[in-house]
């Protein structure tokens, strides 16, 4: 399969790989997917008192497109408010990464991860 340059770039140089303390009240963690399906994404956001995402980290088990999708959204989310981040759609991701149709589910999973991280953060407040 041929990958787009954007996917290869994120795959070769993933941004914001890492893990934050799940128990920190400022941290929201979203984990989506299943090993059986071949993708698991863990996306974490650190939100300041003004409701702005200060930092984002991810780790992903999955194909190159799944890794690139999660890497891309961590870049996008930094500096966004929770509301802005919540408006990121999978179509934005698949467009930016030029994902082929069989890889659209990777961008859907990344959108789900964002929502799960935001929900987790909100549940702690």
């Amino acid at each position, binding site marked *: *399969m041929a*990958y787009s340059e954007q996917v290869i770039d994120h*795959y070769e140089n*993933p941004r914001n*790989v890492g*893990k934050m303390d799940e128990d920190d009240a400022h941290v929201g963690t979203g*984990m*989506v*997917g*299943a*090993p*059986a*399906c*071949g*993708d*698991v*994404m*863990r996306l974490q956001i650190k939100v300041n008192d003004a409701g702005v995402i200060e930092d984002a980290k991810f*780790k*992903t*088990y*999955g*194909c*190159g497109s*799944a*890794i690139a999708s999660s890497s891309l959204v961590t870049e996008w989310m930094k500096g966004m408010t929770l509301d802005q981040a919540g408006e990121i759609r999978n179509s934005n991701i698949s467009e930016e990464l030029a994902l082929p149709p*069989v890889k659209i*589910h990777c961008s*859907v*999973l990344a959108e*789900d991860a964002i929502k799960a991280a935001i929900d987790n953060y909100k549940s702690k407040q």
Partner: protein
Amino acid sequence: MKLPLYLDYSATTPVDPRVAKLMCDCLTQEGNFGNPASRSHVYGWQAEEAVENARRQVADLINADPREIVWTSGATESDNLAIKGVAHFYHKKGKHIITSKIEHKAVLDTCRQLEREGFEVTYLEPTTDGIISPKQVADALREDTIIVSLMHVNNEIGVVTDIAAIGEVTRANKVLFHVDAAQSAGKIAIDLETAKVDLMSFSAHKIYGPKGVGALYVRRKPRVRLEAQMHGGGHERGMRSGTLATHQIVGMGAAFAIAQEEMAADNTRIEALRQRLWEGVKDMEEVYMNGHATQRVSGNANISFNFVEGESLLMSLRELAVSSGSACTSASLEPSYVLRALGMNDELAHSSIRFSIGRFTTEADIDQAIEQSRNAVIKLRELSPLWDMYKDGVDLDSVQWAAH
């Protein structure tokens, strides 16, 4: 562009240059281009002689009579001809077929088709290391069983089936035994004088011959009958019509003859390379060799690198031409049905890579494969939440995953 290092010899092999030379001599006007079925002139006679010489070469490798060899277009056609041919010829005797869950699609899809035609198929389950035992076959036999079809060597995991022992069971019960030997011919000694196999499929391109040609061994004593699947002209004693492709057949014959000469030396060298590869990666945590440890063909190393997904691993191993047990490259997201049939969990099946080593692989190639695999696995585990969880002592089976 620098081509990746080829470690996919189970998928196909390059034609040995010695074979290619002989094939080229059968194509042009100056060469042996005649139709082997032409009886009225020397062009036909020469072509026929070349074809019959190749038939002897193939028969010699497996200790059979040349008259028991039928040329086909490859192992897929041979499998179809053997199983459908027997089912259609012997359908009045019975409608039950036995095969296994880890057969090649050429056998499984043929069996599915026969099920649609009203035959009944039992799919044997292998052990976790990929073995189908003679006892399983014996236990599955019914009054109306007409044929058992099992592969000699599995294409994904390289495990060898004990066809001699299974042949004793089938012969004693007067059931025909078909063996797909596409992955074993030229790599394991086959003696059809002693092994009670009735039909055997072969391919040329797995052992340094050309693609597009294969053969089916059809036993003469006791005689096996087949209903032809291809009609027109009555070639190959009516079992498979169509003008014989002299150059392809000559190539297959030469490849089999070379295999007979060099099999022992090739195997020793390839086995050592496989061992070198395994020694080079096995010290990393959570790395598994799939399939039986010793009952396997020399060139196959199917290795799971747990907590790393197969397609991303292949992406990191761009400089290696290998294949993955993960079918994520297709739209299905299903891991390999062979690995699943061994009872392997999805993560491990998704994380498997098949390295297959062959005649032209060197030690330097293996060292390069080891280095690249290690680097890729380390990099991807750094990225893997599953690896994190494993390191934190989380039992992944206890996690409620949201399947998607």
